[in-house]
């Protein structure tokens, strides 16, 4: 039996949760097993989960004192898993997912595998693929433990919408968890109007080629017309032109969007490690020999200050025509 944890934030399910459910659905077909979706938090609209194949939902309508208290979530999920004799837990490898899975693995005796990118390639023995060496390679692991936690790298498996006419089983549970937080949350600053980088389908990124932080206006405008998240290279975040949270690459965030547009980034191996699993890469650079072109699908040799305004107006034109 499979348990999928559908993460929510601000009364809304995260996009990565739809991917986790899609994964759970496919895996349940593959191993011929039932799957249950567990959700935690007040005032959630569960109807949307059906579109990804969830037809058995267990809901815990409790908000912890602090929304980000990882241990609270770990305890609830472990408790339910152990009571109902599940074998597999599926979660998304978000910051929250990364923070709760180690604890869950110890209290459920599950083997834990993170950064998973695909369904298992074999069930007996159970073999599954994860990213290693910061996206420079993959490793296939054989897991001998019947009980396991599979943490999926966001945007790797993808969201599979399905048309389902089956009824959804929905039940609410109020577990009596005796729990006091070890941490005291003081405040939370959300960048709520921005698209979260690891979950974004489209990402516009720029590097030192932009010459200064004041030139990011056109990058933000391009992101806005595309509906994309903004990112940057390591040197740009190191010199403080952009916040650390936008740094993509080997020692920053690693992303796998549908489209990655790299502007004024030469494509050092450390940068490529974090972005090369993007499904489509557009590189815009003045240097025709920039190594990034070798990893790109589409390339433009040109000056960002000339190309970007043109690209913005072409996309605007395209959007108004379509």
């Amino acid at each position, binding site marked *: 039996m499979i348990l999928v944890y559908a993460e929510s934030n601000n009364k809304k399910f995260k996009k990565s949760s739809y991917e986790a459910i899609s994964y759970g659905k496919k895996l349940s077909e593959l191993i011929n097993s039932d799957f249950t979706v567990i959700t935690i938090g007040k005032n959630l609209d569960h109807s949307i989960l059906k579109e990804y194949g969830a037809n058995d939902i267990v809901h815990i309508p409790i908000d912890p004192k602090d929304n980000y208290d990882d241990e609270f979530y770990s305890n609830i999920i472990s408790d339910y898993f152990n009571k109902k004799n599940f074998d597999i837990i599926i979660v998304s490898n978000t910051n929250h997912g990364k923070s709760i899975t180690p604890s869950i693995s110890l209290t459920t005796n599950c083997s834990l595998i*993170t950064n998973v990118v695909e369904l298992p390639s074999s069930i007996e023995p159970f073999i599954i*693929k994860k990213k290693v060496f910061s996206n420079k390679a993959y490793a*296939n*692991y054989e897991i001998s433990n019947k009980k396991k936690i599979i943490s999926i790298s966001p945007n790797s498996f993808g969201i599979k919408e399905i048309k389902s006419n089956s009824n959804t089983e929905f039940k609410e549970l109020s577990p009596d968890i005796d729990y006091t937080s070890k941490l005291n949350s003081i405040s939370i600053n959300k960048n709520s109007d921005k698209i979260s980088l690891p979950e974004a389908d489209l990402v516009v990124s720029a590097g030192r080629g932009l010459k200064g932080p004041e030139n990011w206006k056109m990058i933000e405008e391009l992101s806005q017309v595309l509906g994309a998240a903004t990112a940057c290279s390591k040197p740009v975040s190191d010199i403080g032109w952009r916040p650390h949270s936008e740094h993509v690459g080997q020692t920053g965030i690693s992303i796998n969007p549908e489209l990655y547009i790299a502007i004024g980034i030469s494509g050092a191996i450390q940068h490529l490690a974090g972005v090369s699993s993007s499904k489509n890469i557009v590189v815009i650079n003045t240097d025709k020999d920039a190594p990034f072109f*070798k990893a790109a699908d589409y390339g433009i040799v040109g000056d960002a200050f000339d190309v970007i305004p043109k690209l913005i107006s072409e996309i605007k034109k395209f959007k108004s025509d379509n």
Partner: protein
Amino acid sequence: MKILVCISHVPDTTSKIDFVDDREFDTSGISFVINPYDEFGLTKSVFIKENNGANITVLCVGDSSCESSLRKALAIGADEAVRIDHIPKDSLNIAKLIYDYIKDKEYDLIITGRESIDYNSGVVPGLISKMLNIPFVNACIGLDIKDNVVHLKREIDGGIEVLESNFPILIAGQKGLVEEKDLKIPSMRGIMMARKKTLSVVKPENDLQSSLKLNKYEKPIVKASCKMVDSNNIEELVELLHREAKVI
């Protein structure tokens, strides 16, 4: 205050990754360094020592090759080093070995990196904190100590959270804990002093098993050639992204 900094010994970020028969990481020509995420925590611990006073132990699980990273950490400012002599099979092995070694030692602050850049699992810090039953702050980007209270900042999905905690605590750090430009590098004096500091080797009592077994490594598929678009014909790029890539 007693601080433990756990480090990994990993291939330098510029390394090209190759394998022997898809089963073994090819280390020929690879230079190994302190895991970049751990360097922020190491420098932070030295700042704490300078401001508040502390004794810093740096620890690594691995064979004798990782002693170069431990020596570097000593030269940067750690007081003593410990190597747990074991080639771990998985993250749980590492966490258990560290836990066994530190459980009676009462460290006030344990600092690790958010993840290592070789196997990227990012689960060792969470495992150790659960084993010790102490608070855990993942993706930590700020730490200050005032009147025995730890003031923390961490990255959460889509924002930043400000927290407080008492000791003992375990944090998994990254850039922001200290700035890149403030990272400490060993001085000549530090290197000389490191030679006199203790580096002890601990042998685990039992051989640890793992439920994970490597089946094979794979390299990412190399992209076919890049389609070049003229900078005066941006319309064509938009068209390709729509019709061919189907992303807009």
